[in-house]
């Protein structure tokens, strides 16, 4: 069981009931990865199934969404392979909205 905080920023909160911060508990037999977290978000957190394409593309986070694990670009943390720990903060920020 691992407890993490998930944040949807830069306008992404609209597909999560306009709530920016979510507390998520994930259980698994082995290590829980960011990949598992993304599956959980897609399967049970996105309210409207049609919004899935806003978040995910070709089985990964859609280009244009910035993913940070504890404020570090997830590219530097092994992306989906990163093993979550209690208290981790994972944030997804859309960069696509007008400036």
């Amino acid at each position: 069981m691992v407890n993490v905080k998930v944040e949807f920023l830069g306008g992404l909160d609209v597909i999560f009931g306009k709530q920016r911060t979510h507390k998520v508990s994930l259980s698994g037999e082995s290590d829980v990865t960011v990949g598992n977290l993304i599956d959980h978000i897609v399967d049970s957190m996105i309210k409207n199934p049609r919004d899935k394409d806003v978040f995910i593309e070709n089985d990964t986070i859609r280009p244009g969404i910035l993913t940070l694990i504890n404020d570090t670009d997830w590219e530097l943390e092994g992306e989906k392979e990163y093993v979550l720990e209690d208290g981790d903060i994972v944030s997804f920020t859309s960069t696509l909205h007008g400036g």
Partner: protein
Amino acid sequence: MSFTPPSDPKKPKGIKVSQLCDLCHSRKALIKRPKNLQKICKLCFFHVFETEIHNTIISNNLFEHGEKVAVGASGGKDSTVLAYVLKLLNERYNYGIQIVLLSIDEGIVGYRDDSLATVKRNKEQYNLPLEIVSYRELYDWTMDEIVACAGVRNSCTYCGVFRRQALDRGAAKLGIRHVVTGHNADDMAETVLMNILRGDVARLEKSTAIMTQSSGSPIKRSKPFKYSYQKEIVLYAHYKKLDYFSTECTYAPEAFRGTARELMKNLEAVRPSCIIDIIYSGESLRLKPKKTKRAPPAGHVEVRSDGSVSLNGGNFVDGNKCERCGYLSSNRICKACMLLEGLQQNRAKLSIDRDVSTEGAAKLTRTLEQLTF
């Protein structure tokens, strides 16, 4: 609506040598720069991001000492970061400029009113004066009314034409001759790509200019973020916890630009430097000069398909003024006045349709008026 900053993560336990910043070699690298794939820490990121913008400003001589500069502020990420960084650099490097926030209220309920609330908070947070100019006072139309009249499909056309003028007029009202906007590298690459895809060669050459000014207009425009990646702007706003507004406009975005943007994002995922590379290609393009047409007979006036009339036998003359509003225009009547006229005719028609007096005697009179022999 208030501002909720992103949460701070807990402190990392141990750091491996391979995770250290490429620049200072002492702190943990948090980001990978899309430009050069360098891995750097938060403090080095702030430093390189700000310094690159400073270098862009200095090498292009964007500002003069004592100049008043209006930041086109929408409340979105780009203009919020721009206002913050310009204020910071102005103090750090003593540009000697006076910064004013200039916002346009298009009159879109549920979108612009919320984003203007953000700009009003920015005004307090950065201690900068703010001026708001509305479509209502300039054109006597709000975007909501225009959409009701002309349909959602044309919304971006109207909004774009009107906003361009509105920024200039707002600046003129404040006695400011320089408007800076938050257009970033992604926007610019997107525009270059769109112009190539559309074959719009006339715009292609001009589209990468960092500063634009027409000889007839006293107001120049510049883009200090020309070389700044959208990703880095968002990261900067995130780490600095800047208060910005992020909701898509209520009206459908321009479909073609949306597709070009998607294409850019997919290209960036494969090759992050491609954004800066496209801008470089755009800058280096030199188009073959157009063959000059045989001069038309004297007094010849060309009427284009949209009803506009060419002046001076079709030669583009910089610095022409619109006959109605005096705004810079290559035609006798500027695009905004032409759109307004179309809207005005529609509004008149609508009010007649709803007119209840079309009964009885009034109806008879109207029918008689339409009779021809």
